[in-house]
């Protein structure tokens, strides 16, 4: 099985803040940094929510710099990323466009991520919304999952990160998540420290 690879060489100015990163991420990784270090900006650039001032984003060798959000095969999960009007079970299927729906896989991921509830997603608790969003991303066609802040809002944070990363490995997806907690680095192969808009690999 080929390991996924994300190559970045980006610059983005936001007000007086300048993000300038050059990375080659192979496998699962986390980005460590304090508030305002540029983690969210970086993830938004990779997901296509923001456009870089200059630079290139390559995912598995494919240049996605100018691709629109829906063409990237990249999904960003945050505490606000859920489809409010859908039922949980419909929500989980949203990202399955090209493959056949595999019911055993869906049940397996539901159990492991802890989705033992149903109903309209908008009416669920924040933690339940996040689990739904994470499971939807895992089941989807997206090959790169970016997670910003979302893990911080669930009660079994550490276990959820561990399970999510393991499922990503099994499904041959790559995950990149932002965190402020250095101990998260044990779940992943690579760790980058982001400080004042500059990145440094520390694992």
């Amino acid at each position, binding site marked *: 099985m080929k390991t996924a690879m994300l190559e970045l060489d980006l610059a983005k100015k936001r007000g007086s803040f300048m993000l300038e990163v050059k990375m080659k991420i192979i496998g699962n990784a986390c980005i460590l940094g304090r508030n305002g270090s540029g983690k969210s900006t970086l993830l938004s650039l990779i*997901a*296509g*929510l923001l456009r870089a001032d200059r630079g290139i984003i390559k995912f598995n060798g494919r240049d996605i710099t100018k691709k*629109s*959000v*829906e063409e*990237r*095969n*990249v*999904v*960003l*999960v*945050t505490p*606000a*990323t*859920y*489809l*409010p*009007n*859908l039922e949980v079970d419909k929500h989980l299927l*949203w*990202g399955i*466009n*090209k493959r056949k729906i595999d019911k055993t896989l869906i049940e397996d991921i539901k159990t492991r991520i802890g989705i033992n509830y149903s109903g309209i997603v908008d009416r669920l608790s924040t933690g339940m919304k996040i689990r739904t*969003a994470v499971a*939807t*991303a895992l089941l*989807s*066609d*997206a090959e790169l999952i970016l997670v910003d802040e979302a893990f911080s809002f669930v009660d079994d944070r550490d276990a959820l990160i561990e399970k999510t990363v393991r499922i990503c490995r099994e499904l041959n997806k790559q995950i990149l998540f932002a965190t402020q907690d250095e101990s998260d680095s044990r779940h992943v192969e690579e760790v980058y420290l982001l400080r004042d808009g500059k990145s440094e690999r520390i694992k």
Partner: protein
Amino acid sequence: MRISWLGILSYLMLIVLILPVLLLLYWGLGPFYDSIGLSLQMQKAIILSLISSAMAVLFIALLFTPLSYYLSRNRNDVAETLVDLPAMVPHPVIGIALLVFDSPLTPTGKFLLGIGINFFNSLDGMVIALIIVSAPLYIKSLISYFDSMDIAPEYFARGLGAGVGKVFMLIVLPRSLRGILTASLISLSRAMSEFGSIAIVAYSILNFFTLSGSSAASVLIYQYYTSFGLKAAITASAAMIIVAIPIMIATRILSRR
């Protein structure tokens, strides 16, 4: 509770704003009551105004909801200025523009008349005029509704491979019914109150079942004023205000979150 001069001034100005209309209601239904103002002709005119405005709003909602969403997500100053245009020009200009558009002397008119579409003194013309003059308000109102919506779900849905159109239909629209309804009622009020454009293009309607020969309420009030004098117009105007009030209240209730 301390009463500030700003509060007193504000309410005073509010009274100044609505006083003439409130007094009209009093005079029209009280001392200056004239039965011609509530005649069958006036009732038909109000019904015609309601029906044509409702039809216009239905078309507006169908045609301009996607545009409102698109402009909210892709800001475009030129397009937004163009949207305002029909509301910025004097409304008789819209009536004249429609007459030229559908005149036998112009290519567009030859085409439209050729396929049986006649604006002059027809329900078609009235509804088209109401669409054009009321759509800007609908679009403006809905753009600000879409602006206030959290965009994160849309990016998430797109990141999972869905195109903008699919996201609009399945994620945005189901969450926008209240905004669409509020914008519809605002433009319904606007359409009900329109005079300038329909006074030119559809002074009276000749092709609408039992309402054939009727004018819109605003136009009929003007007719009463010019042919029977102020007194008949006062009662007719009061009737029109009473019809407008429930729409205003419904808009207010809906727009409150």
